[in-house]
C-alpha cells in the first residue's frame, strides 16, 4: 500500500468538489450529474421532538425540516440547547421514549418513513443504512473490547461473514480511515489509542456497512485542531468516494465553512435560517446568525472589539412565545410576539424573521449598544467605591 499522501488526495478531492474534470481523465461533468432529479437520502419534514419533564414540556425540536442529498453535507449549527443533537438522535430514534416523544413529523430515509418503525425494525437501519459518529470517541468505545472486536461486531450485526474475512475487513476499514499500522491496531484496546485514532476507529465502524447517511455529532469537538483538520478531511473523502450523505452537527462556524454544502442554523428548537454555505456566510439574513458571525474572534485578522449577543440561550422549558430570539434581538418589535414563518427571501435562502426582507435590502443589525456598555460603567462605579 502506498504511503498516504494527504496533499495529493486533497488536491483531487477539491477538484472533484468544484465539479471540474481532473486532468487526463474524462470524468462525467459533475454539475450535470448533480442536477439530475434525485430523491434526497434524508428528508426531515416538520419534526417535533418534545420531552415531557416534571417542569413541563420541553419543545426541544419544534418544527424542523431539511433534506440531505447524495454526496452532500448538511451542517446543523447552533449553540447548546438549540436542539441540534436532539434532531440527530431523533433521526435514528436513539432517544429514551418516554420522556422524549416524536410528536409529529416525518423522517424519510431513502423515501421510507422511520417515525412509525418499531425498535426491532429500526435495528437494521442503525449502522446499516445510517450510521452515527459521536462527539466523545473515548466514551463511545467499550474499554474492555479491542478495536477489532468492536468494528467486527458492527459488521456481524448486518452481514454474514466468516471470522477470517471479518478480521481482514476490519483491517481494510482501518486502512481506509488512514489508521497507522492497522494490523497492530486491530488488537489494541481503546486506551492504547489517542483521541484522533479513536475517532478514526469510530469512523471505520460507521463506514463498515457502507451507509447511505452518516450523522456526525460534533465529531471533532474533543480533538485538537491539527487532528480536527485531518478528521474533517477524512469525512470529506469518505463522502466523495462513497457518495455518502453527511449530516454534520456542530457549533463551530469554521468547521461549517470548510465542510458543509448547505447549512441549517437552529435557535431554541427552530430553524432560524437555511441556505447554501456561501450565501449564508456572505449575507446572513437572520439577526441571530448575524450576531453569531459578529461575535466570532478571527484568527486571520485583528479587531478592536467583538460584538456580543446579549443575554443567554433560553432553557427549553422556557422558550419565549413568538419569535424565540426576540428577547435577545436588537430589532425586536411588538409584531415579534407572533411567530415568524420560515420564508424564502432569496432563491434557496430562507429566514424566519419578520425583517428578513429588510435585512436582504441591507438593514444593519447592531448588537453593541445593548449589554457591553453597562459592564464597564458598573466596573468603574464599584472600583471607585471600593
Amino acid at each position, binding site marked *: 500500500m502506498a504511503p498516504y499522501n*494527504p*496533499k495529493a488526495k*486533497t488536491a483531487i478531492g*477539491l477538484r472533484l468538489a468544484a465539479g471540474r474534470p481532473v486532468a487526463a481523465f474524462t470524468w462525467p461533468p459533475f454539475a450535470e450529474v448533480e442536477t439530475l432529479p434525485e430523491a434526497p437520502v434524508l428528508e426531515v419534514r416538520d419534526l417535533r421532538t418534545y420531552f415531557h419533564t416534571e417542569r413541563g414540556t420541553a419543545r426541544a425540536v419544534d418544527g424542523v425540516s431539511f433534506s440531505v442529498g447524495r454526496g452532500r453535507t448538511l451542517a446543523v449549527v447552533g*449553540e447548546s440547547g438549540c436542539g441540534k443533537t436532539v434532531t440527530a438522535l431523533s433521526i435514528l430514534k436513539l432517544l429514551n421514549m418516554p420522556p422524549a416523544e416524536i410528536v409529529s413529523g416525518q423522517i424519510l430515509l431513502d423515501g421510507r418513513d422511520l417515525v412509525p418503525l418499531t425498535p426491532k425494525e429500526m435495528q437494521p437501519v442503525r449502522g446499516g443504512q445510517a450510521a452515527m459518529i459521536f462527539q466523545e470517541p473515548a466514551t463511545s468505545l467499550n474499554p474492555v473490547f479491542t478495536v477489532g472486536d468492536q468494528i467486527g461486531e458492527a459488521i456481524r450485526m448486518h452481514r454474514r461473514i466468516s471470522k477470517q474475512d471479518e478480521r481482514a475487513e476490519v483491517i481494510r476499514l482501518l486502512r481506509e480511515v488512514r489508521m*497507522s499500522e492497522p494490523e497492530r491496531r486491530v488488537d489494541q484496546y481503546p486506551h492504547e489509542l*489517542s483521541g*484522533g*485514532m479513536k475517532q478514526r476507529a469510530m469512523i471505520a465502524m460507521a463506514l463498515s456497512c457502507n451507509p447511505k447517511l452518516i450523522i456526525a455529532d460534533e465529531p471533532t469537538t474533543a480533538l*485538537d*485542531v*491539527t*487532528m*480536527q*483538520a*485531518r478528521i*474533517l478531511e477524512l469525512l470529506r473523502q469518505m463522502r466523495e468516494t462513497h457518495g455518502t450523505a453527511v449530516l454534520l452537527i456542530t*457549533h*463551530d*462556524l*469554521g468547521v*461549517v*465553512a*470548510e*465542510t458543509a454544502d448547505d447549512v441549517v442554523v437552529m435557535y431554541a428548537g427552530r430553524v432560524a435560517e437555511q441556505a447554501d454555505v*456561501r450565501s449564508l*456566510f*456572505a449575507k446572513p439574513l437572520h439577526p441571530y446568525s448575524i*450576531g*453569531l458571525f459578529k*461575535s*466570532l*474572534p*478571527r*484568527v*486571520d485578522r*485583528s479587531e478592536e*472589539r*467583538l*460584538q*456580543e*449577543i*446579549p443575554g*443567554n*440561550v433560553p432553557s427549553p422549558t422556557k422558550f419565549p412565545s413568538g419569535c424565540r430570539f426576540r428577547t435577545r434581538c436588537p430589532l425586536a418589535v411588538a409584531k415579534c410576539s407572533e411567530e415568524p414563518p420560515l420564508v424564502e427571501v432569496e432563491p434557496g435562502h430562507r429566514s424566519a424573521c419578520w425583517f428578513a426582507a429588510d435585512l436582504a435590502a441591507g438593514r444593519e443589525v447592531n448588537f453593541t449598544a445593548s*449589554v*457591553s456598555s*453597562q*459592564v*464597564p*460603567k*458598573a*466596573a*468603574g*462605579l*464599584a*472600583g*471607585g*467605591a*471600593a
Partner: protein
Amino acid sequence: MSASTSAPTSHAKKSDTATTDMPLLNVAGLSKFFPVRRGIFARVKQWVRAVDDVSFTLGKGETLGLVGESGCGKTTVGRTILRLTRATAGQVMFEGEDILQLPRSRLHELRPKMQIIFQDPYGSLNPRMTVGNAVAEPFRIHGDVTSGGEPVRLTGVQLRERVGRLLEQVGMPADAQYRYPHEFSGGQRQRIGIARALALKPKFIVCDEPTSALDVSVRAQVINLLQDLQKAYGLSYLMISHDLAAVRHISRQVAVMYLGRIVEQAPTTELYDRPRHPYTRVLLSAIPLPDPTKRRARVTAADDEIPSPINVPTGCAFHPRCPLYALLGKPERCHTELPALSPVAPGSQHVVRCHYHEEIGKLG
C-alpha cells in the same frame, strides 16, 4: 470609555512607583517533571516532562497568550506559577519576590494578588454553596485586603453589599448571590468565577481556558468582559488556551508551546501573520476559517500523533512531525541538537526555537 478614567485604583498606583520598569512577572527556567511510578515498589521509572525550561515576562496591564495542543504543558505552567503545583526547577519573580521560594506565610499574603479563572464553569463552583458565599470566600480567608493596609473583616450587610457590587461589575444582578450555581448558565457561572477572582483586587490572573466551555454568543461576552476589566484595573493576564482566535483577540504577546517547551513567541500580529516555527505554521493552518470563499493551502504535520511527553524526541522535539525537516532531507542537527530560543533578527522580540526558521518560506 468612562471606566478607564475612573478606574486605576490606589494600590495599583502605589506599586507603579515602587517597582518602576520591572515586569510584574518574570518566569525563568521553569520546569515541572512528574514522576511515573511503576512496579510493586512504586519506584520512579520515568519522568513526564510536562514543562521544560519555560521563561517569559509579563508586564503590568498586559496579556500573554499561551497556546498549544492538549498535553503541551500550558495548564501546568499556569498552575506552577501560582504554586498550586510545586515546580521542579526555576524562578517565578512576582513584584521582585520569588514565589517558588517563599515561606507559606508570605505566600498566603501574596495570594490575593494572584488569581485564577478555571475552564469548567460547572466544576469550579461548589454546588452546595450560594453564589454569594462563593464570591465572599476570598474575604473570609484573607479579609478585605483591597485597601492596602491591615485586612478588614467584612460581615453582614457590608459583605453582602460588596459581593453584590462585584457581581454587578461582571454584569450579573446583585441578588444573584442568594441563588445556587445550578440556576445559572455556563456563561453566567463563568462571570461568577470572574467576580470571585476579582474580589481581592488581584494584579495578575491566570485565565485557564476561560471561554472553551462556552457557546459562541456567550464567549464574546466573556472576552469583552475580561478586556473591560483589564482596562479598568490594569490587570495582567496569562491567557492559557487552545483557541487561537480568542487568544489573538485578547493578547499582546503570544507564546506557542509544544511538548513542554516554548517553541515560538512574538507580539501577537507578528506571530499570527508571520509565524516562523513549522509547528506554529501547522497549528495556524489547521484552524478552519469561518469563510467558505477562503480555502487555505494547509501545512500538515508529517505525523498526526503527538509523541508522549515521557519520551520526548531528541534534539528538536517536533522533528518527527516536522514538515520542514522532511522537506530539507532530515538534517542531522534537528534530531541531535536542541535548538535555542533565539530572536529571528538581532534585537527582535520575535523568538523561535528552530535551526532552520529562515527556510520557513519553503513550506509555501
